[in-house]
Every structure is written in structure tokens, then in C-alpha cells.
């Protein structure tokens, strides 16, 4: 017989305190309020006092509501039955289907022994030159899209997901706009991908803290499938909302903030999620693509900043394009040495020249005379932007490399490119 506790000592923010015995750290509880049943989790124990974070928020919780401890941490179901299903931030069905109860296991499990990881070696082709040529995406990579609000980041996420060759897609929405939720669902459906997808959707209209469980559920499910040999792609949008919920709880718990109100363990919290990206030896893999919106377009804001220190690069989305500067795939060198012998050189030199182009633009805007070299750079930059940077471009890697050589040879002499001579001999287009 389960015991109820019906004396709530304190309600502050979304944290309530009860007196209870035999409760374990991080255990789940249910609170029955006038408006329904809400899930809560133990976040601190202090003698008999138990602090619970209420996922649906504390609004409407009254001091005589009943709390029941569930004797287990957060769990999620994992079986083939999950495929094609849509759940909310607590793991309850959002699609009218049955609740899942089979094969339940704990979320937020232990981390993979580094000795059991393998160096990832497979490129994920996206057809986007700014990714394939300049910052190749690699299976098992963890990579965020840094973006300001209003950029088409969800469209980019969906496009990569549709084009990537993976066995499964898991979408975690945190504070997702309802329209975006429908966009993802419809896109998956149109491409016939819904039947190999699982969605955990917390929308902007749901209680904010409820999004805290989303990454853990997504990644726990992904881990189970990856262990069974599946290549899983996890999409998380938007991790800034997740971080803001962490901040809310930390402030309620009167933790001393480290930076702009965010808790000192923000790095560890984010890392423990992102580090779930993995390539298992003799099994599948988890690739994580996330969205991190940057408040005020500021990368030094704690959320993008900490994220950058954790992930294996980042794509900056600005003006509807992936910015060449700052965008980085740190795993690219694992794969771009085996694609084509000119891949690395094209990648390096075209970006360096593009940097020079930006300088020339600056000079020009200040009214300086353009040298012959500046004029060449201006021409180059325009073509680079239109033919390679635009997200409308959808061509395979090899075609994009050829296009790179074409642009270079249309504008520059071989020596001006600074390319190694052997490459010029092999790839410089013959006129």
C-alpha cells in the first residue's frame, strides 16, 4: 500500500517541500492537485525534508494536496511500439495512442566507458556544401545550430534529418512553437519517415519546467536502439529553453548563480546530455543535432558558450545561411581525408579567401580604392555566397568541390590561390 504525504511545508517557485521518510534522491513522486496529477522529482534531501521539483509547475498546488512517492526514478519505455509515436514532455501520449508501459527503464543512465568508444569514421552527407565541403557532419557527432530567434533553424534541422541516411529519428521539442511541432510532424510524414521516428514534444504552451525531462527521454531511447545496432539521429530543439528551465529551478533553490543567473553546473548538465552521442563498437550510433538560440545574437551568452565547449563544433545560422566563420565541425578531419584528395585544401583555401573578401568589403565600405586583388576578391566572394553558401543549393560533395575549383579558376591564377602545386596540377580546370 502506497503512503501519501499530505503536508506540504513550503511552495517556492516550482519546488515544493514535504516531510517524508525513506525517500531516495532523484525519486519520482506524483502530486494530486485540484487540476490533476503532476509529476515531480526529488532534487534535495535534508533530514526529513524532501524538496521536489514539480514538472507541471506549482501553480494551483495547495498545502493539503497529496504527494505519493513512486519508488523509482524517471523511466521511459523502449520497444518497437514507440516508433511513429508522439509523446509530451512527461512521456505521456500526445497522439491519442495508448500509454506505453512495456520494457520500462531508467533515463539518465551511466556514461559510456571511454575505452569502449570508437573513433567515428562515417560522414553523413547532407547535400549542403557549407556542411559537406567545409564542415562535414560525422556519424555520432554532437553539433548545435547557433541561431538567433527567427532564423529557419527548424527547417534546417528537418532538412538535414530528411537527407541523412539514418535508421531512426528522435525529435525532442522543448518550448517548441505549435506550428513548428506540426511542421516537423508533417515533414516526417511527407517523407515517409514518421514510422521510424519517435517524438517527445514539449510546446511553448506547456509548463516550462516540464521540458527538463525531454533530452533525457530522447537520449535514453536513442541509447537502447543504438545498442541494438540502429543508427539514431536525435534532434533537440531548443536547448536554450532547457537551460532556462535549469536556471529557474536553480534560482528557486537559492543556488548562487555563476553567470547571468545560470547555475554553476550548467556545463555539466549540458555535457551529460550531449556526451550521450556515441559510436558503439559492433553496434549502432547516436548523432545529436541541437538548436541553441542565442539571446541577443551573443555567442558569449552562457548557453551557447557552454554548449560550444561541449559539442564537436557548431553551425552558425545567420541571414538564412550557414556562416563560414565560427561554423566548425571538429570531426571533419576524421572523414574529409578519405573523400577526395583536394577536399581539405579546397576547404581551407576557399575559407581563407573568403575571409580576405570580407576584409575587402570592409575597405570598400570605407571608401578606399580597390586594388586589382581586391576586385578579384569581391568577385570571388559574391560567387561563393551565391553558389556555395546559399541553402537553396543541394548538390553532392564531389560536385561542390568541382564547383569550388571552377570558381577559383574563373577568377584567380593558380599561384594566387596558395594551393599546393600537386593539387593544382591535378584539379585546376583546363580551359
Amino acid at each position, binding site marked *: 500500500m502506497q503512503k501519501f504525504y499530505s503536508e506540504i511545508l513550503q511552495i517556492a517557485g516550482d519546488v515544493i517541500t514535504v516531510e517524508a521518510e525513506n525517500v531516495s534522491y532523484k525519486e519520482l513522486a506524483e502530486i494530486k492537485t485540484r487540476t490533476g496529477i503532476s509529476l515531480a522529482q526529488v532534487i534535495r534531501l535534508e533530514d526529513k525534508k524532501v524538496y521536489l521539483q514539480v514538472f507541471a509547475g506549482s501553480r494551483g498546488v495547495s498545502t493539503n494536496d497529496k504527494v505519493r512517492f513512486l519508488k523509482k526514478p524517471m523511466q521511459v519505455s523502449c520497444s518497437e511500439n514507440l516508433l511513429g509515436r508522439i509523446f509530451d514532455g512527461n512521456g505521456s501520449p500526445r497522439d491519442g495512442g495508448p500509454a506505453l508501459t512495456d520494457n520500462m527503464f531508467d533515463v539518465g543512465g551511466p556514461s559510456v566507458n571511454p575505452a569502449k568508444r570508437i573513433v567515428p569514421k562515417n560522414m553523413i552527407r547532407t547535400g549542403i556544401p557549407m556542411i559537406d565541403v567545409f564542415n562535414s557532419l560525422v556519424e555520432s557527432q554532437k553539433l548545435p545550430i547557433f541561431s538567433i530567434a527567427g532564423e529557419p533553424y527548424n527547417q534546417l534541422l528537418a532538412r538535414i534529418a530528411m537527407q541523412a541516411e539514418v535508421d531512426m529519428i528522435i525529435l525532442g521539442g522543448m518550448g517548441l512553437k505549435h506550428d513548428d511541432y506540426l511542421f516537423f510532424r508533417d515533414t516526417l510524414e511527407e517523407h515517409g519517415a514518421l514510422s521510424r521516428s519517435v517524438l517527445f514534444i514539449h510546446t511553448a504552451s506547456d509548463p516550462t519546467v516540464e521540458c527538463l525531462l525531454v533530452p533525457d527521454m530522447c537520449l535514453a531511447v536513442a541509447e537502447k536502439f543504438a545498442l541494438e545496432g540502429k543508427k539514431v539521429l536525435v534532434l533537440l530543439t531548443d536547448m536554450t529553453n532547457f537551460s532556462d528551465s535549469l536556471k529557474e529551478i536553480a534560482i528557486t533553490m537559492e543556488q548562487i548563480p555563476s553567470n547571468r543567473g545560470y547555475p554553476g553546473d550548467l556545463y555539466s548538465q549540458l555535457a551529460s546530455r550531449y556526451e550521450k552521442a556515441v559510436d558503439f563498437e559492433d553496434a549502432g550510433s547516436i548523432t545529436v543535432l541541437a538548436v541553441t538560440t542565442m539571446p541577443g545574437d551573443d555567442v558569449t551568452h552562457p548557453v551557447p558558450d557552454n554548449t560550444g565547449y561541449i559539442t564537436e563544433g557548431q553551425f552558425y545560422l545567420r541571414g538564412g545561411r550557414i556562416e563560414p566563420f565560427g561554423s566548425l565541425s571538429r570531426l571533419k578531419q576524421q572523414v574529409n581525408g578519405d573523400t577526395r584528395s583536394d577536399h581539405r585544401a579546397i576547404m581551407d583555401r576557399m575559407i581563407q579567401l573568403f575571409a580576405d573578401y570580407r576584409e575587402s568589403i570592409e*575597405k570598400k565600405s570605407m571608401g578606399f580604392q580597390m586594388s586589382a586583388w581586391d576586385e578579384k576578391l569581391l568577385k570571388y566572394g559574391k560567387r561563393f555566397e551565391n553558389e556555395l553558401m546559399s541553402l537553396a543549393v543541394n548538390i553532392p560533395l564531389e560536385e561542390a568541390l568541382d564547383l569550388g575549383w571552377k570558381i577559383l579558376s574563373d577568377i584567380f591564377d593558380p599561384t594566387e590561390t596558395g594551393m599546393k602545386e600537386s593539387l593544382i596540377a591535378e584539379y585546376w580546370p583546363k580551359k
Partner: protein
Amino acid sequence: MKADLRKGKVVGVNGNMVAVEFEDNVMQNEVAYINVGDEKLKAEVIRVKGKRTDLQVFEDTVGIKVGDIAEFTGELLSVELGPGLLGKVYDGLQNPLNRLAEKYGFFLKRGAYLDALEEGEEWEFTPTVKIGDKLFAGEKVGTVPEKIFEHRIMVPFKLQGQWEIVEISPKGKYTVDKVVAKIKNEEGRTSDVTMLQKWPVKVPIEAYSKKLKPVDPLVTKIRIIDTLVPVAIGGTFCTPGPFGAGKTVLQHLLSRHAEVDIVIVAACGERAGEVVEILEEFPELIDPKTGKSLMERTIIICNTSSMPVAARESSVYTGATLAEYYRQMGLNVFLLADSTSRWAQAMREMSGRLEEIPGEEAFPAYLESRIASFYERAGLVKLRDGSKGSLTIGGAVSPAGGNFEEPVTQATLKVVGAFHGLSRDRANARKYPSIDPLDSWSKYTSFIESDKVANAVAILRKSQSVGQMMKVVGEEGISNEEFVEFLKGEFFDAVYLQQNAFDKIDEATTSDRQKYMFAIMDEIIEKKFKFTSKDIARRFFQELRQSFITFNTLEFDSDEFKKRESEIRKKLSDA
């Protein structure tokens, strides 16, 4: 574990901090275990208040209940020292990750701990002392071959005063727990010497006769470092830089190419994938000095970002302790910690839970002293037998927002001998290594003549200021001479300071080659060019750069190298 352990009861859990009410007594920093079901979770006493103590738990604390039992061991957090450490991969508490993987599979099992040195492994011991010899702590009683080194078996570091050998084992194979010598001090107290000794990680090993000033340059084979901002053998340096600027790549390059005997890589709170790259690469890479795999001279301490936070702090200390141990053998040891900021953050998290009064950015007030005492563990030492050993420490720093005006960077800069500041702009422009040549500094001396280096730095400075000027007045606003200086600086940067980490030859430049190449650079910097227009000048340097990029990828002194050199020289004399 002993049966008479002192016990206590859990009274609170807050993240990885657990409060325990104890019965008899506890000791600051002693190790305790918390019993959760059938798991025992390792923890360390970090504060005592009345009958309550706060423990930092080195594991996930999920499932701990008020009333759970804690057991105190009376031992400080320690590591095992002995033959068999080289080539191993440990977590921050010195658990061997490979054997954990064999035993438990893909995931790190909570509460699973294994001995650092393999039980039952036998080592060929050769005594180097005879009965009656008198020794101090840290002096050797014998040696065993470990990989390519002669591993010294030493009088335990904790023993004070002089000790006389009363028994010594003959040459033969022994396991690390076998007594190989018995010793007696002046008061007649006897002690056993085994090949294994334990040492508390937070206490430096100081069983040497004195600490010397580090002067000799440590050849890292990274040109910008060796030439402009050198590191000394036994010195310290730090590498702060925003995310993605190249700290880890640089540390990996150093760990592969630096001319030292032993490298200890402490991956502290960073990505697991980066460690895996080392694990996969190192066994395949051959150390040119020894002809053996690089793994034979390397130890990896790996406490990556998703592993328990408290063990992050211990991981840098574990690394330093193992490093000091090998230094005691007269070896040059290099400890690379990536990233010290994660260790500082772990301290901050714990300090916050202890509700200590926070300093800047919520870091604890003792941040500076902790950082200082960590780098203090580096040093060139003279051992009692007259030989020298060294420990060089390099720490990556990950400043919030890439801003060096933050507590960890600032505290580190106060104590290190060299500062290799990575620049976001250089990294964005793919100018690697992205060490800022003008902001960075070193208190050590290079193996390249200092007045020549000063010349090179002057041209870089000049080049930068002309570059700035051009932004204001345009190319037409500066003289041809100034423009050439601008080009010289850019050229020196592009072909000498920048180095291609992905080219087999260019990634590492020996000191001989550096001296040779720098002499050519010096000639070019000194040369008076007479170009009739800026476009011609630019063109000349573009071509020269082109030539050098290939030159850098040719094997030193090979025929191709010589051929290219004479082409370059011709081009120069024609100009």
C-alpha cells in the same frame, strides 16, 4: 575492507554532496563509502561541522536515502605507484578503464573499482643496494624494466630520516606486493619496501634534494612556441582560448612530439571522443626517439565531462602524482591538463553546495591558491643521487565567453612561466596554431637567438600596425616600404608561425630544422626589397609563400628539400 570501520548515517543529499552524521570521529579528506543497496559509492570528507560531515561523492548520487550507512576508511584519497602504470588509461580515481570495460561492458558501472596495477603481474627486479647501505626516502633499492625505462623501486616517500638496508631480495621476478627489501631507521623501527606504494594525490612528492630553476628549453616542435613563446623543461605554461580555438589539438600535438620521456595526459571534464582519438592513434604512432609506440611513454587520465564531477578535481591531482613519481626516477615528465577550467568549475559546484561565500563568478575564494599549488608541482629537481628529473605542466584554460579577464585565467597567469593565448580571430581565419604571437609571452628562453627573435617580433608588430593603418587610410595611404613590411610580417606568420597539423612533416619541426628555417626567415625579414609597385610586391610574396608551403612539407635535408631551397634562394636574389 576492514571490519572496524567507523560509521555514520546519511542525513542529506544535495547533488553530489552528501551530509553524514557520524558516531566517533572523522578526518578531513579521508575516503568514505556510502552504501546504497549493494553498491558502495566512494566519497571524500570535505567539511566537518560538529557531529556532521559533508562528503563529496565521486559517483552519481541517485537512489541515496536519508539513513543510508556511510563507512569511513581513515585513508586519504590515494593512488597506487609502481611498475605497470605506463600505457594505461585511468579514470580520475585511477580505475583502469580497459579492465572495467572487460568486466562491465559498455557502461561505467557505479561503485565498481579495480586495482590500478594488475594483480599477479610479475616484474624482473634487480637490486642496486646491499645490506648496510643507508638511504633516504625516494632513493632506489633496485630497478625493474618497464617498457623502455628503468623503473626505480624506491624507499617509500612517506618515510622520514635515514634508513639502513637490513634485507634485500636477490634478482628475480616478483609481484608488486612482495617485500623486496627491509629497512631500519636510527631508532630501530623497521619498514618493508615493496614495488608498490600508495601516495595521497593532493600532497606533492618531495623526495628530492632540491628544486632548480628551469632554464633549458623543452623542444615541442611547434615553431611558434619554440621560437616565440618557449617552454622550459620543468616549467609551466597555460593555454587559454575560447571554444574551438585549438587548445586540445595543440595539446595532442605536444603530447605526440615534445622531446620528453613520459607524457601524462589528464583529460579533465572534456569530451570523451578526444580521448578515444588518442587511444586509437598513439599505439600506432612511433616515437622517433625510441622507435617504440607512443603509448609506451604515455599515461592517460580520463575523467570526461559526463563522468562524475567530483572525480574531475581528483583527476588533475592523480595526473600530477603519477608525474612526480616518474620524475623521481630521473625522467623528464610532461603533464598536459585539458581543461583546468573544468576542475575549477567542479570546485565551484562543490563550494556552492557547501554554501561558502562566493568570490568572483561564484568561484570560491581559495581558487587562486589551489591553482597556484597545482602548478607548483612542476619543476626541475635534483635527486639525491645527483641525477635530474623534471615535471613540466601545461594547462588548457576555457574562459567563459572567451574572455581572459575571468578568475581562472587570471589566477593561472599569475603563476605560470609562459602564456599561450589562443585567439578567436586567428582560429576563425584558420591560422593554426592560433596562438596570438603578440599577446602571448614567455619568461623562458628559446634555442633561437633572442635578438633575432626580437627582430621577427618587431616585424610582426609593424606588420600589424601597418595593417591597422591600411584599414583607416587604405592601401594608397601607406608607402611602398611600409607595405613590404606588412607583407613580410604576414609572410613570416603564414609560413613559419602557422603550421599544418595534418601534414606528416609540417606538424612537427625539430630544433635543427627550426634553426635552419628561422635563419632563412631572418634573411627575408632583413632583406631590402625594391618593388616598383604594391601589386608586384604582393605578387612576389604570394609566390614565395606558395613555395614555402610546399617547402614545409618536404623532408628536412632531402634532395627535394634542397632543390626547393635553391629555387627559393634564386627567387630571393632575383628580387
